[in-house]
């Protein structure tokens, strides 16, 4: 097993956090440059939240994604950021799987409008979730090794 102190481990952790952070910043930027109602419509199409909650999520989630992205890229509060990333991606992935399994032909809402949920989006988000879980594990293992 690769040691948490090895260069390979560190490089893999750096690559994962910069990649995930960059993706989160990009996703946030796409949402923030369009009116919040557009993202609200994507959330609403999942049909799980009342309209008030949809509005709240649409107005706040992109800022949260931006914050998490910046934390990942800079490496500040890495364990908390990695947990938040895994939780967010876990929820997104779960909702997408549910929509796909029930035959809902709706927009993923991941990177703005115009992207229907498909096996490709599931594969992409599933890979991101796997990467995020790996990063979370790495962040804790490295901490333990350092402590």
């Amino acid at each position, binding site marked *: 097993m690769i040691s948490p102190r090895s260069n390979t481990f560190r490089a893999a952790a750096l690559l994962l956090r910069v990649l995930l952070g960059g993706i989160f910043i990009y996703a946030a930027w796409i949402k923030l440059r369009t009116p919040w*109602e*557009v993202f609200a*419509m994507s959330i*609403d199409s999942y*049909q799980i939240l009342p*309209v008030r909650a949809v509005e709240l999520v649409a107005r706040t989630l992109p800022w949260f994604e931006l914050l998490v992205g910046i934390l990942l890229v800079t490496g500040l509060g890495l364990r908390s950021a990695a947990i938040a990333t895994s939780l967010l991606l876990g929820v997104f992935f779960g909702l997408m799987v549910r929509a796909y399994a029930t035959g809902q032909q709706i*927009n993923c809402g991941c990177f703005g*409008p*115009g992207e229907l949920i498909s096996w490709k989006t599931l594969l992409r988000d599933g890979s991101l979730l796997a990467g995020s879980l790996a990063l979370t594990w790495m962040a804790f293992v490295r901490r333990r090794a350092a402590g």
Partner: protein
Amino acid sequence: MRVCVFAVAALWMGWAAAPGVDPGKVIGTPSAPITVEVFSDFECPACKTFHENVLPELMRDYVIPGKVFLASFEFPLPMHRYSRQAADYAVAAARIGEYLPVADALFREQQSWSASGKVWEAAAGALNPAQRKRVQALATDPGVLAEVQNEIGVGQRVPINETPTIVVIRGSRSIPISGRLIRYELLKQLLDDLAKK
């Protein structure tokens, strides 16, 4: 709902069509601050829902009061067997000022003609005998066929990935939105916010 749609039929004028669309397929005041372009497929169930549930409210609150200029574009998807044919009839009907009644009829009878292929029967139900003759002739006119193809081309340049897609235009800003399962309340909020800017 239907009453509202027919009430605005008088506004269905080709004063100054949106670029790339037949003048018979626009509604409202061209100088309205916001333009809404709807890219739709007559055989798509989500387009039927949008046409029957969201469009009448949009017309009532924004198009008739002159706040929104509405343009309808055909975007028949290759996966739908008869939607191109339906688009041809609809554009032919637009040439004689009967787009909306024919579009209403095609969406209303969608389930039936998409199974049987009897598209003309559904479209003809909205027309009188004289209009039927003209629309049937126009539906094979090269100009009409080119018009449908042109509208598909406009959609591809957006680019449209699904139907219905609504493109909200305010000044130089163009916002494409999925029309699937769209909640009118949110569309209304968006239009109100854009109108303030």
